[in-house]
């Protein structure tokens, strides 16, 4: 008998239980309840988000696969496709930072190679609490080590990502992992269980008791009992995954299989129910045949284990031997555990008894979809009265403080723990606006970026969503890439709270509006709710992963200044905006105001100008203005030059000097051009109707910014570099 305690343990409501009974026509046994619990968890079912996600634009002429599969697929021409997705691994990474983040990497890699693509790049979007706290430092150290250990071992380069710091992540760090793979268009594989009588093969690692109910755990708030959840975190084995990767790609390349699905969240339950559900078939499996690394496991445990590095394969009976031979070559188990059957049931045997006998559609497709109540509380905060904020005297000092803010500071301490060069495709190393990868034997290149400013989203969720898309596209424009596809990871608090649902609704609306304006399809993503601990929720944190295509690899633009004497041009308009800026936060300890306004038509025009100028070969460098505004942007261009080269800029605007130098007004890019090409660049801007001002020159050993001739910033690049470079490592020095 299922009682209230059982339901509570399985995080199911009374109503949901009632629906289960109705769907299967009887009371489920405990194993079946476990199956429903995992598959109907927020993590697997998207029951709170589906309703709102429907508005995202998912169509486009190059979309081969949109949301609903393991990953999205975009056609990049010449018979090739890219397969990419982002996923969160927030909850496990807080409980056990190293294994939590490592298995996050393992999981997203499987999502990509299960579709027949060889993974070529990993990126991570990380959010931590301030580094002053030892706990936050240890979480960050563990997360970075975990990513490093998994990605480096398997040999997929971790080429970039972003790292932000804010108090709201102290009890809820975020680990969002992105992976992109490349495949031949005619060799894509899906999670299909087609062909009655076809065999079901279990491949990869043996099943243990780790990670049972991981998906359910990721769908709950945390309280003080968090330490007890550590056994819910899986343990990763990157070497096994490397073997699995090679073996899977080999059986696919040889055309030996019908369908394949990885065992990620909800393990064997998820793969063995989703595959037949997608094909209108049923499945019969015998748990006695599942390779196990522990004795005495119950059917409940075998079905819900989230042991890593496992896959489920469907193959024709006559191909089984060949499949097994390939897996044997890579020293992996490949065991026949069942077959595809008619009738749409999932029938699971154990010790001669049927322990689960339920329709796959009930588990996969009939989970209730909630249109949860939302509060209009998520209204833009009141504009701050900018006049009340004093204009500080010493801009040099502010610049030093800004570059020492970990959100802005050099992330090399993180990136150099990742092997970002393996596979020898990385053209633009981590730290730039976007990472750029060549495609061997082709003139084309791919650019990838992750972006999302949660302070903006906190202050105005809709603007946060719009700006995240706009800035990610701007990052791509800076390297000369046109966006082709979007994946997103939406990190929020408890969706049962109306104000959180309000934030979610508005962020999704913002993302949707911006993606429509840029005409880029969303091909999938991930929603992570319940990022709350002890009642404290994170800021709404949308992370956008956008992939861009560069037609000619020789036209890639990089952010660093190139040579003394090059002209510096600011594309876009200055305004007087300080709300939500890193400047207000660092200098005045304020996280308020309204985030910068954004006009998507103007944004697109600026990006188009940058792209056309890049393609015409006018640009020596390009870098977008974001956190810390013009001063930080100019400083970084100097750092990235490799020579710590300075610049001399003079502005001619009527705005407050601090807003001009440190404000985060959107739709601006700082570019440089040879003086011989300056005229052409400005003419192109004029033709496109984009404001572009030649504001100075590259050169010298100082960063000099003045307003109508009056010096505001005048500081040696070397000094600023030192602050920028040491801000993060100084927290982790081994004494």
């Amino acid at each position, binding site marked *: 008998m299922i009682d209230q305690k059982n339901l509570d343990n399985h995080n199911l409501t009374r109503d949901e239980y009632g629906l289960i009974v109705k769907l299967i026509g009887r009371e489920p046994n405990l194993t079946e309840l476990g199956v429903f619990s995992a598959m109907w968890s927020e993590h697997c079912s998207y029951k709170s988000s589906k309703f709102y996600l429907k508005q995202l634009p998912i169509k486009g002429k190059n979309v081969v696969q949109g949301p609903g599969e393991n990953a999205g697929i975009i056609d990049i021409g010449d018979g090739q496709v890219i397969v990419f997705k982002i996923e969160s691994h927030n909850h496990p990474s807080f409980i056990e930072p190293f294994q939590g983040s490592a298995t996050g990497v393992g999981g997203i890699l499987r999502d990509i190679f299960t579709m027949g693509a060889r993974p070529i790049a990993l990126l991570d979007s990380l959010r931590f609490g301030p580094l002053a706290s030892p706990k936050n430092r240890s979480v960050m150290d563990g997360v970075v*080590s975990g990513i*490093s*250990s998994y990605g*480096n*071992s*398997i*040999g997929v380069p971790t080429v970039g990502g972003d790292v932000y710091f804010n108090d709201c992540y102290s009890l809820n760090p975020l680990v969002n992992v992105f992976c992109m793979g490349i495949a031949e268009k005619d060799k894509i594989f899906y999670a299909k269980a087609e062909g009655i009588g076809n065999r079901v093969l279990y491949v990869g690692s043996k099943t243990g008791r780790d990670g049972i109910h991981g998906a359910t755990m990721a769908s709950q708030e945390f309280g003080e009992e968090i330490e007890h959840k550590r056994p819910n975190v899986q343990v990763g*084995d*990157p*070497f*096994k995954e*490397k*073997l699995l990767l*090679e073996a899977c790609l080999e059986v696919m390349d040889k055309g030996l299989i019908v369908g394949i699905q990885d065992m990620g969240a909800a393990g064997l339950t998820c793969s063995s129910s989703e595959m037949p559900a997608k094909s209108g078939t049923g499945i019969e499996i015998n748990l006695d045949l599942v390779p196990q690394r522990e004795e005495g496991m119950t059917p409940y445990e075998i079905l819900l284990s989230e042991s890593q590095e496992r896959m489920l394969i469907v193959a024709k009976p006559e191909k089984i031997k060949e499949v097994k031979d390939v897996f044997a*070559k*890579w*020293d992996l188990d490949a065991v026949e555990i069942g077959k595809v059957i008619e009738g749409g049931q999932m029938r699971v045997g154990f010790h001669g008894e049927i322990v689960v006998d339920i329709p796959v559609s009930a588990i996969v497709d009939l989970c209730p979809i909630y249109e949860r109540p939302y509060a209009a509380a998520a209204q833009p905060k009141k504009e701050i009265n900018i006049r009340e904020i004093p204009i500080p005297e010493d801009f040099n000092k502010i610049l030093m403080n800004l570059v020492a803010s970990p959100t802005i500071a050099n992330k090399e301490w993180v*990136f*150099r*723990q*990742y*092997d*970002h*060069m*393996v*596979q*020898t495709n*990385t*053209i633009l*190393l981590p730290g730039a606006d976007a990472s750029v990868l*060549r495609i*061997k034997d082709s003139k084309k290149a791919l650019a990838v970026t992750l972006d999302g400013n949660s302070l903006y989203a906190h202050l105005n969720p809709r603007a946060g969503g719009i700006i995240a898309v706009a800035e990610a596209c701007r990052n791509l424009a800076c390297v000369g890439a046109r966006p082709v596809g979007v994946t997103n990871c939406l990190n929020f608090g408890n969706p049962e709270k109306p104000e959180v649902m309000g934030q979610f609704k508005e962020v999704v609306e913002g993302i949707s509006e911006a993606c429509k304006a840029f005409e880029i399809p969303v091909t999938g993503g991930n929603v992570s709710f319940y990022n709350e601990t002890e009642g404290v929720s994170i800021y709404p944190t949308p992370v956008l992963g956008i992939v861009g295509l560069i037609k000619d*690899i020789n036209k890639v633009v990089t952010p660093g200044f190139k040579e003394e004497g090059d002209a510096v041009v600011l594309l876009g308009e200055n305004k007087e905006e300080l709300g939500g800026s890193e400047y207000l936060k660092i200098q005045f300890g304020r996280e308020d105001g309204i985030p910068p306004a954004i006009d998507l038509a103007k944004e697109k025009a600026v990006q188009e100008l940058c792209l056309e100028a890049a393609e015409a070969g006018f640009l020596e460098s390009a870098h977008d203005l974001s956190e810390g505004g013009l001063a930080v942007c100019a400083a970084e261009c100097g750092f990235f030059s490799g020579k710590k080269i300075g610049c001399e800029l003079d502005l001619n605007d009527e705005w407050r000097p601090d807003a001009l130098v440190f404000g985060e007004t959107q739709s601006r890019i700082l570019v440089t051009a040879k003086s011989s090409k300056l005229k052409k660049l400005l003419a192109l801007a004029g033709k496109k109707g984009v404001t572009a001002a030649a504001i100075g020159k590259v050169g010298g050993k100082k960063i000099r910014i003045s307003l109508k001739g009056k010096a505001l910033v005048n500081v040696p690049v070397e000094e600023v570099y030192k602050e920028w470079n040491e801000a993060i490592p100084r927290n982790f020095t*081994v004494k």
Partner: protein
Amino acid sequence: MKFGVVIFPGSNCDFDTFHVLKNVIRQPTIWLWHKDHGLQGVDCVVLPGGFAYGDYLRSGAIARFSPLMQEVGEFADKGGVVLGICNGFQVLLELGLLPGAMLRNKNLKFLCQFVTIRLENERTRFTHKGKKGQVLRVPIAHFDGNYFAPPETLKEIEENSQVVFRYSGANGSLTEEANVNGSLHSIAGLMNKRGNVMGLMPHPERASERLLGSEDGRVIFESIISKF
């Protein structure tokens, strides 16, 4: 010259190395699978970077027992040319084809970055196309690259000029800062006494194409294929 690139199950720089040998240096190149027997008439065996068998025990510790490695050992004993890059270097140390061992990097972190290394000995089959004192810009990517050997071994390899590369500043100076992983004597690359086996931690295959930011690594491959 015919190259053979060994694939251990956890090799991950195998494709990169193969790509450079075949498409950049343009030499006939074949795969050598760790479970197979026979070196198929190759003139040079390359052990690529990676995590040979996962390296959970110690980098390269299991690889030395693989069937193919016994044959690579015999090949080396007969004077065959063997190049070990990164994990390949670690395997050569475990196999005893080169002296010494690797410890964790001095900062106890994985390090992936461009470094500069100074060419110490140009009279080798791996470097004769280069110049003594020449500084190469080449990436490293390893956790265990902190070279260690007892004093008497160090003395011996120095006396025999077996040190082929040292970590240095861009101007060739040997400093603690430039010695990023803490290697004794700043050793980045080392050969055996006979001069037919070399291992190095930096990845020359990642610095053999202009697009990747450096072509300095090519000198090693070009030396190997030229008459010595």
